[in-house]
Structure formats: C-alpha cells, structure tokens
C-alpha cells in the first residue's frame, strides 16, 4: 500500500536536486483517491442500470440525478479551499470531504426509490467538492516545489486507476450476480471507509502557515483579494477560456459514434480508452511540465484537444481515427488536469494555496459546463461536424494567444528553479 516511486533514470541531470522521489505522502494521497474513485465510480457506472433495471424508472429521472451530480461539486469547491486556508488545516478539511462521501455510501445501502438515491448522490458530490482543493494543497505542501508537476502526475495516475477499476469491479460483480447492486454498494462503502482511514492515519496533519511562522516568516492573512494578483489572474483567465472551448468527452464520443461504425459498436466503452491514455501519460507529462515549464505544457496540452477535435470531425471514420481520438483526449487530460493544479499552487499567495487551486478548478468546472451548453446550441445551429470545426478553429486561435498570456509565468518558473518560489505580492 505504501509505495514510493523512485526515479533512477535522471539523477545525473541536475546535481542540486534531491533524489527524484515523489513523497510517500503524495503516494498515500493517490491511494486514498484511488480507493475513493473505485467507491464513487463503481456506483456511478451502474447507477443507470440500477435506476432503470432495479428501481424500474426511466432515465429521464436519471438525467436529472446526473445534473445534480456534476453541478453541486463546483459550488462547494471554493468553500472547501477557503476553509482549508482559513483554518490552516488542509488535512482535516479534506478528511471531512472524504468522510461525507463515505457516509453517503452508508446511506446508499438503505436508500430505495428515486428521491433517496438522488439525495445520496448529491451528498457524495458535496464531499468531492469539499475535499478536492485541500487535497491538492496537501500534495503541494508535501512536494518538492521543483517536482510539483510530477507529484500531481503520480496522484492523477493513481486517481485514474481508481476511476478505471471502479466500473470494472462493479460490472464483474453484476456478471456473477445480475441483481447484485447491493454487493456493489458494500464494496463501494468498504473502499470509501478505507480511503478515509488511510488519510486519517497515514497523512501527517501539517499546518503550512504555522510551519512558515515557526521558520520566522510573517503570515499572509487570507484575503480573497490576495488571489487577485497578476499571475493568478492570468492563470484563471487562461484556464477559463480553455474550459469554454472544451466541449466535453460525451459530445466527442457522440460525433465519433455517428461517423464510425467502430465507435458505434464500442460507444459505451469509449471512456475506457481515454482513461487508459490519461493513466499512461499523467506522470511523463507531469515530469515534462517540471522541466519544460508548467504553463507551457498546460497551454500546449490543448493542442492534443485540438487534434482530438480534428480527428472527430475528419471525414474519415475508421477504428484508427477513433483510437487516436481517445488517446489524444487522454493526453489532453494528462497535460492539463494535474498541471493546472500545480500551476495554481505555485503562483497562489503563500497562505492561500487551497483557495488558489479551488479558484482555478472552479473556473474550469463552470467554464466546461458553459462550454458544453454552448456547444449544444452550436450543434443545433450549425450541425455536428461544423460545430466541432468552429470550436476547433476558436481553440486554434486561443492556443497561441494564451501561450503569450502565460509567457510571463514561464519565465518566472524558469527563474524559480534556482531557488524556492516567492510568489509575487
């Protein structure tokens, strides 16, 4: 359970660095996320079946549940980040978030009927919203600042393993016992509880602000205004614009499905391909971000998204194009998800790490929601392929512009590799 990833390959490269090792705390946090993702994804993947097959409801209701599922977490995320910074206790705020989700899994065992299931899912997502930013702040405080990208890469890789294992375990159970929903819920609960316990027992309850005060630094009291400084503004703006141009995997899968018999055949499983690519590329791209610049990798990662759009809209639709599209989507997530957290952590004011991360992630969540809605309208107005091409064209314009916008950050990153980063005041 307690693994550390030693990187033997490149120790000669920079003699001043500590041995290339990702902190065991980060790995533990990754394992906690893995277990929690098994817990929530196993339930999420069978939820449509459970609601239609076992509860006998049509999925109109399901669409409603799913809306709650996605919307709730973005709203409470900012609150989780603020609480974490304000109390200077990222571990216990994250713990609270994980615990809320675990309790929701207990309730799921007794929930019957649509309203109960909807309530349980909402509570589960609330927990996710609360924990994400403090958890990412914990990764930050437990990482060598120069390897932040890699730390997040390792965490997101483990997280993705959980997201892939969850549906697998759930469907394996249903394969053996076709009505074994309750079994899935029990396994989900066990994984959620173990995740909470491992976090509570193995992750040190560090207090970043107090530690810095002990080292003689003057604490920076938390102010929302503190987040409104030039570099954070650039990060949030770039992340927001990109999020608006991210139409959502679901739509890309639908375009592929309509064009390629291969994609139509495998439609329910396309997300697996994206997850596998995310898993494979999370660590290499995190490392690349540390070396080549996080801002650069974040911006250039969107070229993978651009290429995925191109694949989806291309007039050829064979198996290879479909697979290429899924791989590109995975690369896009690997180059942007953890890297954005690392970038926000790096440039957030010293004592507002969690709030800074929360701000960037909330902008992304809200931006993607708007982006998907806007794309729906565009799809309606312009047609399927044209809509994808329009968004692709906008993205092609945005990438170089946002590259320029984030260029000051790249030079700040380069300067900071010599000494620990001092965020701008």
């Amino acid at each position: 359970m307690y693994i550390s990833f030693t990187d033997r390959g490149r120790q000669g490269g920079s003699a001043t660095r500590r041995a290339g090792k990702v902190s065991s705390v980060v790995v533990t946090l990754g394992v906690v996320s893995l277990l929690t993702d098994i817990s929530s994804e196993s339930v999420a993947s069978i939820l449509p079946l459970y609601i239609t097959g076992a509860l006998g409801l049509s999925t109109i209701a399901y669409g409603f549940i799913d809306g709650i599922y996605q919307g709730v977490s973005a709203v409470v995320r900012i609150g989780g980040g603020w609480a974490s910074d304000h109390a200077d206790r990222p571990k216990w705020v994250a713990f609270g978030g994980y615990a809320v989700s675990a309790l929701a899994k207990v309730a799921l065992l007794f929930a019957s009927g649509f309203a109960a299931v909807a309530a349980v899912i909402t509570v589960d997502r609330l927990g996710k919203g609360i924990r994400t930013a403090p958890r990412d702040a914990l990764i930050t405080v437990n990482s060598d600042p120069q390897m932040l990208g890699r730390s997040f890469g390792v965490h997101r890789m483990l997280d993705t393993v959980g997201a892939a294992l969850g549906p697998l375990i759930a469907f394996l159970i249903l394969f053996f016992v076709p009505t074994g929903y309750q079994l899935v819920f029990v396994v989900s609960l066990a994984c959620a509880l173990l995740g909470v316990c491992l976090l509570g027992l193995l992750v040190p309850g560090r207090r970043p602000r107090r530690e810095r005060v002990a080292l003689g630094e003057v604490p920076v009291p938390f102010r929302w205004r503190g987040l409104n400084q030039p570099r954070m503004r650039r990060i949030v703006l770039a992340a927001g614009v990109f999020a608006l141009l991210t139409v959502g995997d679901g739509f890309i899968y639908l375009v592929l499905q309509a064009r390629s018999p291969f994609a139509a055949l495998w439609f329910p499983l396309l997300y697996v391909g994206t997850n596998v690519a995310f898993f494979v590329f999370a660590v290499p791209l995190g490392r690349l971000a540390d070396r080549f610049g996080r801002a650069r990798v974040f911006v250039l990662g969107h070229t993978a998204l651009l290429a995925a759009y191109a694949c989806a809209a291309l007039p050829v639709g064979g198996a290879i194009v479909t697979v290429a599209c899924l791989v590109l989507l995975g690369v896009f997530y690997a180059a942007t998800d953890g890297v954005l957290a690392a970038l926000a952590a790096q440039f957030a004011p010293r004592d507002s790490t969690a709030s800074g991360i929360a701000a960037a992630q909330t902008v992304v969540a809200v931006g993607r929601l708007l982006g998907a809605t806007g794309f729906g309208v565009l799809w309606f107005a312009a047609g399927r392929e044209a809509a994808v091409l329009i968004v692709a064209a906008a993205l092609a314009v945005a990438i170089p512009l946002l590259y320029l916008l984030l260029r000051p950050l790249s030079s700040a990153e380069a300067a900071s590799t010599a000494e620990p980063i001092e965020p701008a005041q």
Partner: protein
Amino acid sequence: MNARLRTTLAAALSVLLLGGAAAYCVSAVLDYQARQASTATTKSASIGAHGGSERIVFRSTTPDADYGLVASVAANAPDEARRVSSTVCDRVYSEAGTTVCLRIDRGILTTFSANLLADDGTPASVWALPGIPSRARVSNDGTLVAFTSFVTGESYASIGFSTATRIVDTAGADHGNLEEFTLLLDGEPNTAVDRNFWGVTFADDDSTFYATGATGGTTWLVRGDLEARTLTGIRPGAECPSLSPDGSRIAYKKNVSTTGSVHWAVAVLDLTTNEETVLNDPRSIDDQVEWLDDETLLYAVPRSGATGDSDVWSASASGGGEPALFIEHASSPSVVRE
C-alpha cells in the same frame, strides 16, 4: 500514536475492509450459484408454443435460476406453469414468429445489443446498442422491428437524457435511427438537436407507426410514416404508445404529477373520438403497455422491496374495475397472436 502503530493499524484496516468486502462478495456469489443450481429446471431451447393457443412471451424475474430468461405461458391460463427457455434477455418482444431480444452483455466490459432470435433462441441478426435497453416492439405481421435504448457513455453529464430508436425490417432493410426522420410539430419541421425518440408501436399497414418524441422539455405522441420518413406530433405529454389490436385506440403513459417528481399513469386515447381515459391504478406505471385483447391492458410493475423483480398486471382499458395480478415475477410481456 506513533508512526509504527499508525502503519500497523492502516494495514490491519486494509485487510479487514478489503478482505471483508471480498469475503462478503464471494459468499454472496456462492450463495447465488447454489440457489441457481438448486432451482435449475430443464429449459427448452425454443420459446415454446402452448398447444396452439395464444401465448404471452415475457422475461422471467423469479429470483432463482430462471431470472432474466425468456419464458411463456398460455394467454388463457397465465398462472399455470410457465415454459422457460434458455435465452437471456433484458427486454423481449415476440410476434408472428419474430422475436426481438434486447440484452445487456454483462462482463468486465459491459456492452448492449439488440438481437433477432432464430427459432432455437440463437441470434440471427445483431445490432450494437449505445446504452441500456429500453423498449422493443414487433409489428403484428412480424416484418418490422423497433428497439429503443438509452445513450449512456461515461460522460452523460454534458449530454443529459438521450435515447436512440431504430426500426429494421426482418427482410434486411434498415430504416435507420428515428432522429434521421423529419419531425413535424404544429405543421412546422423541427430540427432541434435535442430531439429524442422512444417507444415505437406499429399499425397494420407496415408504414404507419406511433412513438414518443421529445424536444425542448416537451414530449409528444408522434405518428410516423416509414415511406415518407416523417414523424408528426399529434398530442403532447403521451409516452410509450401502444396501439390496440383493432387499431382504434392507443394506450400510453403520461405524467400526472403536480409536483416536481414524476408519477406515471396509464391512459387510453380513442383515435376516432380523441377522448382520453386515465386508468385508476394508483401506482406509478413506467412501462410500454401491451394489449391482451381489445379490452385488456398488460403492464409490469416493480415489486416493492425486491431488487430487479416485477409482476405483470392486467387492467381494463375502459378504466373500470381494479387492476389484477396477471403473471407473477415477470416483465416485458408480449401477446403472441399468430
């Protein structure tokens, strides 16, 4: 607590929780298999006839070895012993020698399919479905087949509720997805991207059919024309239509709830008088109704407290009387008249 104690405790909890969950699963699986073995009966390969009489083909939901298998009973003796075939379906419909079977192909990588079954229960034609099976129908002469599934990938969030409905012909012609048809609402063509169609029922002329169409948050009973490839909205708020054997009435489900939650009632529309009768079953009925004869409706209602189990009930199409239990532990009924 020192670090060592914490690590030991974490290891112990890992073994306890993961081991406990695994043990619980293994015992449940063994339990399930034992129950399967003890209740196993001889299965006929084919979906059997009942001495030449009309029969009801349905999906058995008995919580034993027969769960999920296609079974049949004589229409005039529904509570007598059922004949159980060895074919697994999640939704089934049979008429005039044509049986369509929608299936969740369970496995580590779960997929979904629509199958036209040969007489021995093996699939003669297969179509991949983009999600969980929903509704299936066959025309009275057995030549046209319609099936609906949900469109469920992993990221439903950005798409919301979506269905796919396809009509095929047993001779091999594919009429395609209903979304490719022209939808006419209030006489105007509607090209909204959020159009969804589900729950087809066929008329006897092999061209007219009825279905549910939805766009912009409103559902419509639509009349389809296979030759003209059009769908015309004829009445809002009616879903999963089912045409009576004589073609004079349509039964459907409609949401009668006045609050935010959904409560489905079954209603019958007389096509000549345009008069609607709502059945007085107080339960929420979420099924595509089947006609036993011109006076009687059949539909499945989930059993409370039993996961994935349901019963088929019968009710008078004129709205009188009480609904009666028709076939226990059954769903997806179809009346084979051939």
